């Protein structure tokens, strides 16, 4: 995992390149977002991905890296979480394989002997739910928002094949697709395993099926796909501008800490102050994390609009030279190309519907 603009000259070069090929509108926001990077958080090493990291009392994360599953990271991508309640453990996301789910269970067992009581799936993605089978076999209920099982059933015919191809049969041994149960979460806070949590579906504008899960005692928020840090998200099912708006959801800004689906953990200034200067390098401020992703979404929209207005044929949309200032983010390739492709189709559809 690399973070963008490790030197100011590189930052400047990207900004100059970007300005030379794009309109100035909105650039100031981008510049502000880039300059706000401050210290670049350091990603989990392979070893860290096996040990639970304590975020607050009773709230833990088994970190992954933000890259797509590959032979090096063994599919330890995405941040998996767990909350230790009075009566048991609530797990948030199960990982990309049965093996990853076993690593998660091992990490939980090093923290508590309480029973595994509930699994919540934060969003429909292969990286977070292929460990479901392990928990189902243990009799743990697995819940998600209503769109998640539908989208996974529609799209994931080939996910398992692809993961086996990428990660190998050994790593994927015993892995199967188990769809979570669509659950009607109550509004407001409720008790789960003796832990008071609240679950917000969406918010509208982000990935369908997303859940934002807040632990009320500590103010730690698991954002699902709504927030990812230094990683280009897949913007296929929504418009980038709707997602940018969804990021204004105050549940993020008011959190003590935000565990994004992918990438380093974001902290409030209060939480950051409790860290040593050295430890702070592993984190990012919540506001910076939000504004960087908003910057990406705005610039994605802007670039796609430019291509659409030039009436570029669709097949050429993904072949644009990489001068985009987010090219050092995880999954820039292929996600940014995909995102341009889908945004172009959205703009075409909007154009057709307009008078």
């Amino acid at each position: 995992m690399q973070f963008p603009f490790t030197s100011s000259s590189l930052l400047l070069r990207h900004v100059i390149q970007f300005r030379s090929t794009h309109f100035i509108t909105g650039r100031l926001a981008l510049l502000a977002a880039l300059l706000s990077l401050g210290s670049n958080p350091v990603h989990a090493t392979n070893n860290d991905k096996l040990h639970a990291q304590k975020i607050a009392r009773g709230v833990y994360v088994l970190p992954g890296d933000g890259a797509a599953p590959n032979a090096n990271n063994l599919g330890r991508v995405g941040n998996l979480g767990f909350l230790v309640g009075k009566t048991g453990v609530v797990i948030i996301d199960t990982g990309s394989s049965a093996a990853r789910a076993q690593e998660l269970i091992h990490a939980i067992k090093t923290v508590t002997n309480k029973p595994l009581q509930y699994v919540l799936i934060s969003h429909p993605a292969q990286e977070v739910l292929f460990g479901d089978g392990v928990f189902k076999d243990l009799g743990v209920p697995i819940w998600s928002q209503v769109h998640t099982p539908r989208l996974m059933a529609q799209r994931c015919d080939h996910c398992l094949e692809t993961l086996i191809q990428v990660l190998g049969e050994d790593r994927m041994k015993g892995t199967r697709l188990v769809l979570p149960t669509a659950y009607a979460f109550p509004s407001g806070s409720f008790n789960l395993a003796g832990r008071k949590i609240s679950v917000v579906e969406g918010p509208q504008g982000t990935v369908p099926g997303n859940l934002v899960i807040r632990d009320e005692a500590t103010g730690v928020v698991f954002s699902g796909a709504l927030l990812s840090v230094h990683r280009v998200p897949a913007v296929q099912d929504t418009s980038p501008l709707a997602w940018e708006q969804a990021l204004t959801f105050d549940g993020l800004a008011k959190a003590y800490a935000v565990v994004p689906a992918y990438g380093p953990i974001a902290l409030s200034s209060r939480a950051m102050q409790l860290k040593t200067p050295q430890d702070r390098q592993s984190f990012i401020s919540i506001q910076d994390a939000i504004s960087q992703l908003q910057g990406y979404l705005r610039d994605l929209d802007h670039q796609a609009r430019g291509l659409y207005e030039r009436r570029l044929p669709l097949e050429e949309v993904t072949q644009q030279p990489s001068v985009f200032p987010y090219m050092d983010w995880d999954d820039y390739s292929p996600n940014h190309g995909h995102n341009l492709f889908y945004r172009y189709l959205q703009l075409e559809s909007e154009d057709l519907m307009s008078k």
Partner: protein
Amino acid sequence: MSQQFNRLVVRATLALSGLILAASAHAGDPEMWSRIRASLFQDRPIVEASGDFLRLDAPTRAEDAAVVPISIHTGIPQSAGQYVQNTWLIIDQNPSPIAAKFVFTPSSGQADIETRVRVNEYTLIRAVAELNDGSLHMVSKFVKASGGCSAPAGKDPAEALASLGKMKVRVEGDVIPGKPSLAQLMISHPNDSGLAFDQMSRNYTPAHYVREISVTYAGKKVMTAEVDISISENPNFRFYFVPEGAGVLAVEAIDSSDLKFNTAVKLDTGKNVAASVKPAAGS
């Protein structure tokens, strides 16, 4: 130096053998093609086209198997003496392999077509052009994509129904008499293939697709297309026509439920001041 040269030769040989292997791996399913060929062209000779004479552009690996952009380019200007009369777009491994048959006239100017298709599994995609002298010419490309025909519609069904048949035709650039002008046709239509399983209703969404498109300019036929379930949701076409002067570019589309949709733009020569003369209408 000689070592470097040897290394270069080895690399070139490896690269070449890789290319040969890749080419043989992309031979597709000859049995499938022989069946399609027999049904469409019987035992008529088909020339493998090369260079600019006929070109098919498609991504080697598709972004989305339900929306695979395809371009067919011809190097022959359409004239009364020689022109491409018919072009078939064939996707060997699709459940319904003949995706489209485009019929051109000398008024087409240039028998080029761009559209988007669904691809069900790794397949050879072919364009076969028939000239007015009856000769057949073919190009093909292997495309890696799968699941496109059974992919669910991107748009909410109620929303898709509300905008069913809305069309827009747009002409790019200035309209110059006698010169081919590029037009783009967009149709709001789910183009349901009948192969997509609806997880909510636990049923297959019935097939409902655009089956015929005809385009005229100033009353003269420019292009017609018989199209099929392989064409993506919200069918989209780019094609050429030759304006001889001011006129109306009119499009009619008919779907598999025999619903008819129309749109048209009035064009003046010189600066493109295209204006819609008739809103899209379903009947």
